[in-house]
């Protein structure tokens, strides 16, 4: 077994990114698609923190990761409100059925 280093964190992040992308591509329910997006953002955050740890660029990666978390929180709140509105209008949150813009 080789020593755990930057590679291991990058590969973990790649796997999590792929799983999140799979959720975004294949899930029907809008809320699970949102969960996939959160997973993708987390994978990106692991990369930021890993590079901040294993290079000499200081702590900037962690600062950026905090901004990513803030943006994800704002995005989740707005997306949830949109999903609830879609449910109120169309009585479904399945992305293949919510295909009408009219009331």
């Amino acid at each position, binding site marked *: *077994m080789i020593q*755990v280093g*930057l*590679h*291991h*964190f990058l*590969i*973990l992040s*790649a*796997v*999590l*990114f*792929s*799983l*999140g992308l*799979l*959720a975004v*591509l*294949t*899930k*029907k*329910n809008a*809320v*699970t698609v*949102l*969960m996939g997006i*959160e*997973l993708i953002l*987390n994978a990106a*955050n*692991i990369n930021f*923190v*890993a590079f901040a*740890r*294993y*290079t000499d660029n200081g*702590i*900037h990666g*962690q*600062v950026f*990761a*905090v901004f990513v*978390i*803030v*943006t*994800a*929180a*704002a995005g*989740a*709140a*707005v997306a*949830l*409100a949109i*999903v*609830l*509105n879609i*449910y109120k209008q169309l009585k479904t*949150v*399945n*992305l293949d059925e919510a295909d009408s813009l009219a009331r």
Partner: protein
Amino acid sequence: MNAFDISFYIFAAGAVVSAAVMVFARNLIYCAVGLLFALANVAAIYVLLGADFLAATQLMIYVGGILALLLFGIMLSVKFTGVELRTGTLQMLPGLLVVAGLLGLLIRMILRTEWAMLEPGEFQPTTASIGRHFMTDYLIPFEVASVLLLVALIGAAYMARREKS
């Protein structure tokens, strides 16, 4: 193999397995619980990377906030009559193929690149340093982020309110 390596493998396996549960589960509540454990394991990975402030932030905002919000979203938008709490999948085979190809490409790229990797120094607490960055060279993004959060909260509350009829 030291304690750092062992704990990395434990938490990485936990994160990947719970993310897989989130992706492949049919029940929406199982999806949410899978995401919960994946996010908690990612917080542990942050601790291994020496990011103590970020790990606490992750636990408070993701596990405590965003996940509760997602559960609200699920429970407000399904009827609790059995079948409706499940979610189907679309285009599973093409999705799997595309994602497997992308994952293979990424891993190949990661393994073949000569990363300019340094040995990490001693762990130091990061909170004071992050706060100093927020108040000096990241001041504008910090203020913009606060305004963004305010706008998002007002917008979400406005959109999700019940109209009086």
